């Protein structure tokens, strides 16, 4: 099937070229970072994780969200999703690849990366994250590829792939739960030390991921002869709005606990992100942008005519995606380090090389996504004709 990715329109090759160019910029910036050390980033002794780990955290959610089309199709026989499960699975593959790249560039000694396997340490959540992420990557590559190959030959997929599909459902939940556990089990980081962290992660993931999937479906329909189907898109939109409301609800729960209890450590993080703390407030505009986008998207998605109209639906999905990208891809991780253990504040601003590497990895992820989607769409077109 790979050969289908090798022939495409001029626009396809331009897209590949642009993404490859951005990938190149990222690689160059990474080589610079490799040479100078992580000093080229905006991270510091106090804010020791930044944009990279935050992007990783957000993208684990995008990867996990494939389950939102796989589960209804395979467990509840929601026929509309039959056409787009492959898009969900290939999105997961691209997202996990980005996750792994973001971890890699965040390491001080990337060449020693395999120490995690050489000295396996079950008490470390990071060890389990490595296990579940790689497992999820392989599950989705195998499932997506086998099912698509069968579809191309117009035969039933082999029976052995069914157990893998069922396994991929709880596995998707596991990747985001384990990622939440990275944060939720650390003593002294009050902003992260919350039992609903994993639930929050899953809720926001099941809103942001499917929102991106809707946008991708709309793009696919525009640029190819493959139509994912209006009903499928509407059904995914229902998932987005439910998950978004649950996600907002969970954040409000956190805010209630912090501010009704009045325990300073629990309040500080929220104060810092929403209004600024002791004169420091770099994240305030971001937080409000995220909050406003979430509320506007909720209202738009709750309004049936706006949800059914695909233009306004696309706008809502963009809002959901960027709102939750800010929440998990920027504020959640950085605020965990503020204030520091000495109750003082060091702020964080990413540097140019850091942003270049981040953009490079996103571009690499979308390059993988473009190629995988090209294959999937070509197969679908081939069957239709």
């Amino acid at each position, binding site marked *: 099937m790979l050969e289908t990715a090798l022939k495409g329109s001029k626009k396809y090759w331009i897209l590949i070229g642009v993404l490859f160019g951005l990938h190149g910029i990222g690689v160059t910036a990474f080589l610079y970072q490799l040479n*100078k*050390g*992580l*000093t080229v*980033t905006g*991270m*510091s*002794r*106090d804010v*020791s*994780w930044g944009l990279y780990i935050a992007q990783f955290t957000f993208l684990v959610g995008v990867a996990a969200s494939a389950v939102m089309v796989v589960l209804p199709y395979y467990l509840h026989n929601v026929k509309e999703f039959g056409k787009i499960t492959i898009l969900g699975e290939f999105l997961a593959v691209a997202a996990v690849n980005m996750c792994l790249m973001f*971890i890699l560039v*965040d*390491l*001080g*000694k*990337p060449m*020693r*990366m395999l*120490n*995690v396997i*050489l*000295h*396996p*340490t079950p*008490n*470390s*959540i*990071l*060890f389990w994250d*490595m296990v579940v992420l790689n497992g999820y990557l392989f599950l989705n590559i195998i499932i997506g590829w086998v099912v698509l190959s069968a579809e191309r030959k117009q035969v039933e997929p082999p029976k052995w792939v069914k157990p893998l599909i069922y396994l991929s459902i709880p596995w998707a939940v596991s990747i985001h739960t384990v990622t939440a556990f*990275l*944060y939720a089990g*650390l*003593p*002294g*980081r009050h902003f992260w030390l919350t039992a609903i962290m994993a639930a929050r992660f899953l809720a926001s993931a099941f809103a942001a991921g499917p929102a991106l999937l809707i946008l991708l479906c709309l793009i696919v329909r525009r640029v190819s002869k493959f139509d994912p189907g209006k009903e499928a898109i509407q059904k995914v939109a229902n998932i987005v709005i439910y998950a978004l409301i649950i996600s907002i609800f969970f954040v409000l729960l956190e805010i209630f606990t912090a501010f009704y209890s009045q325990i*300073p*450590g629990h309040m500080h993080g929220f104060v810092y992100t929403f209004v600024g703390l002791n004169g420091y407030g770099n994240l305030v505009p971001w937080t409000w942008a995220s909050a406003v986008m979430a509320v506007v998207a909720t209202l738009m998605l709750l309004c049936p005519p706006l949800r059914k109209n695909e233009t306004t639906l696309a706008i809502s999905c963009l809002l959901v995606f960027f709102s939750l990208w800010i929440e998990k891809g920027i504020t959640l991780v950085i605020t*965990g*380090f503020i204030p*520091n*253990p*000495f*109750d*003082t504040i*060091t702020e964080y601003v990413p540097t140019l090389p850091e942003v270049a590497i981040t953009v490079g990895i996103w571009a690499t992820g979308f390059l993988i996504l473009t190629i995988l989607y090209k294959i999937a769409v070509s197969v679908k077109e081939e069957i239709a004709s």
Partner: protein
Amino acid sequence: MERSRRSFLKILGISTLGLGTLSAVDLLAKAEMGKAEYSPNPKGMTGKRWALVVDVKKLDEETTQKAIEACHLIHNVPDYGDEEEIKWIWTDKYEHVFPGQEHAYLAEEIEEKPFLLLCNHCSNPPCVRVCPTQATWQRGDGIVMMDQHRCIGCRYCMAACPFGARSFNWKDPRTTYFKDKEPPNPKYPTRTKGVVEKCNLCAERLAVGEMPACVEAVKDSKAIVFGDLEDPHSEARELLHERFAIRRRPELGTSPNVYYIV
């Protein structure tokens, strides 16, 4: 030749089993190691739970600086003076050392006192719990150690430590700080970029029967007392018996082993 090829293939076979490899390689490595004879220095100090008792009253700006300088010279700790600072032992004010326990009417003497800060060598260390490679681990005597040759620089331990005791080498000290000057102590290795470091309670000095450098540096004032808390007759234990001492953030359950007499 044939034999070694066979054993090579054997190892390769085991390797494909994934996790199985590790124990196999470990065994082979141990068998190799067994041939060389090593024995601990008979002068070395042994204990079950090393601890430091800091008598804040006996510390002033001058004495704390002495302790800090001794440590940083012995361990080749660079002094960058910015947000990428490497800290093994340093000072801060009461309100930053014991956040949440300060109040507006704090005794003046305490408010401005320099408190010595260093790794607490917790009995239940979260940094050890989270490290994915066991590059940081706890010895039988309680010291939380750091293997800079195994550390992958993920900085999970820095997020986990509630005491801010860990520093990361954002840049290469060998090509920046020690570029034009020799590291003060040629016997102790400088670090490379990309690894985490922290106070090791002078494990290398204890091994040859010497006191931790900070303790040694202020020994005239007896401001820092080092001892084994499992030994009822140790100086540290007796001091804690006589005087009231507090620890940083005990509510987090890490059980710090640095005590402050205030």
